[in-house]
């Protein structure tokens, strides 16, 4: 059981980290609480399904095409829906909620509400320390790790990353130093949605795809981001691992744990907030006046 907990926690934590880091990036740079973040993850899963099962393309092609398509689509949504109301924080909030609902209903309409299964990308199991781990879960783990490293490299080793970090730090000064803040925000949206889409594509074969699959990861992701501190990437990563393991422990160790896993994870978030209102690694924002 211990090995089960270790492996499941790590795999789930990896997926959560992909989602949470993307969400955290958008919040840090553009101060957008993007409720539609996991809806893009759902869109990517559907896109992957239709390319792979309906159109019969290969795994690699459909994966890459769906990530690219969803990313482009997110930039389009940002330009058309979010950017015109950027000054009104509350309008942005419900615009993202409404976007998520639109995606959910569109998918419900075009694919129906039933669960769709996607064949595994890789079949077979490998024996790791006494637990048999399907290759698919190993693939999730590897992709998550690669993407995290790539995001780190992008943020800390490129000029775009420098601009993103500068904008997150202080948008006005970044603008004064000649950075195109709007362009940076758009690039951030693209990067973060791409991370969500990659998560959707690799996870789809393990889960079932349905129009409501965005809700439960959304809540977990928000819990992680708040736990780790809004806008902090390190916090999101650690929060993702904490929540991933907490969920795994609840499911394996408690009776009726499957129902309680969300409640326990969220209670941990509330506990952390009671002790540190800005999350584990959050910075205390100076009150804007």
């Amino acid at each position, binding site marked *: 059981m211990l090995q089960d907990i270790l492996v499941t926690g790590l795999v789930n934590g990896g997926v959560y980290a992909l989602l949470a880091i993307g969400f955290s990036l958008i919040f840090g740079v553009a101060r957008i609480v993007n409720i539609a973040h996991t809806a893009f993850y759902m869109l990517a899963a559907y896109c992957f399904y239709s390319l792979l099962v309906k159109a019969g393309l290969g795994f690699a092609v459909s994966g890459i095409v769906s990530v690219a398509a969803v990313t482009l689509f997110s930039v389009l949504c940002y330009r058309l829906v979010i950017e015109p109301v950027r000054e009104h924080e509350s309008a942005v909030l419900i615009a993202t909620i409404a976007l998520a609902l*639109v995606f959910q209903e569109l998918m*419900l309409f075009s694919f129906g509400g039933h669960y769709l299964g996607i064949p595994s990308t890789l079949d077979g199991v490998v024996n790791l320390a006494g637990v048999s781990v399907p290759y698919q879960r190993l693939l999730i783990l590897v992709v998550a790790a690669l993407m995290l490293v790539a995001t780190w490299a992008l943020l800390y080793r490129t000029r775009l990353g420098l601009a993103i970090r500068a904008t997150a730090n202080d948008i006005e000064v970044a603008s004064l130093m000649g950075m195109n803040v709007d362009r940076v925000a758009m690039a951030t949206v693209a990067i973060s949605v791409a991370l969500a889409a990659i998560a959707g594509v690799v996870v789809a074969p393990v889960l079932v795809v349905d129009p409501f699959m965005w809700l439960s990861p959304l809540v977990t992701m*928000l819990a992680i981001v708040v736990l780790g501190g809004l806008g902090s990437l390190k916090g999101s990563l650690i929060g993702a691992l904490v929540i991933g393991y907490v969920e795994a422990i609840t499911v394996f160790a408690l009776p009726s744990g499957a129902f309680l896993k*969300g*409640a326990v994870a969220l209670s941990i978030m*509330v506990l952390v*907030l009671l002790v540190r209102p800005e999350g584990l690694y959050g910075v205390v924002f100076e009150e804007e006046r």
Partner: protein
Amino acid sequence: MYWLRRGWAELKNEVFVLPSRTAVLAWALALLVLPYVYGDPYVLRIVTLTCLFAIFAASWDLLAGYTGQVNFGHALFFGAGAYASALVSLNFGVTPWVTVWIGALVATAFGVVVGYLCQRLRGSYLSLATLAFPLIALGLLFAFPDFSGGELGVSGLRRLATTVTANYYVAVLAMLAVVFGLWLIADSKFGLVLHAIRDDEVAARASGINTPRYKLAVFAVSAFAAGLAGALFAHYIRVAGPSTLETALSFQVVIWGIFGGAATIYGPVAAVFILYPLTEWLANFRAIGELRLLIFAVIVLLVLLFMPRGLSPWVRDRIETACPRCKQRNRAWRSACRLCGAPLENRGRSAISEKLKSP
């Protein structure tokens, strides 16, 4: 006779001077006479549910719009009211007229607890943390199905009244009373403090306002109203189910609140009265019934693109203008302020008078 004359004078001087107040009065009267004019049970059912959700949306607005504590888990109070009232009335056989208040009080207790836990949280942290509470409650309900009925909820409740019309009046009167009460609170000195807390909490504290106590109080009041709405809802549809705690309901109330215009009380109520019957009405059409949520979301998006501050502030700015000197509101087509006589800058109107003067 004196009171009649006095009442008429009040009406003329305080209500009919402003188109928005006239509209509110007309709307309240229309709700009260509706069963006599058009007694279709289906319509009455929709309006009853609309009224209950209007209470819920107005209570969210007091907390989120006025005080700035944007609550993403408002369904917790709705669900707490619904479940508490349902369980008490079923297990102890108490009449729903009593248990509705018990439900509201239980919701108030939840409000105080949530408010206490979230005391130190600001802005987005508060929103995202409050999202968690109804889900924790939902997890507990599913984990102990013997007590809560699990997925099916608590069913077989008694209604407050027996006939359709009586139930309708219970909901309408409750709605008018609660919304008017919330509006009075929001318009009082207490409401002014709430505005101050939203705009600048540090400055409010520096002015000697005990902001944590005010925030707790507003959490309690808002939760009380939401719990009342939840309890009435449960007894009306005769089931207290997990749907009263779902994230979808929490998001729904956020959409109503912001769509109608935050920090107005009447805005969210207007939004519920527009959006809820609209979605129900769309469900009647076979061809687009499945698409109703889609249409709902698209309408919300489009309205926001044109009126980012919400529907009711936008409409109010079209039909009323604020006096530049005394800040009182006036009909948009008046040329001088009704209270201090200062000339009003009117769009359209002033352009015409300029034209008349110039030759």
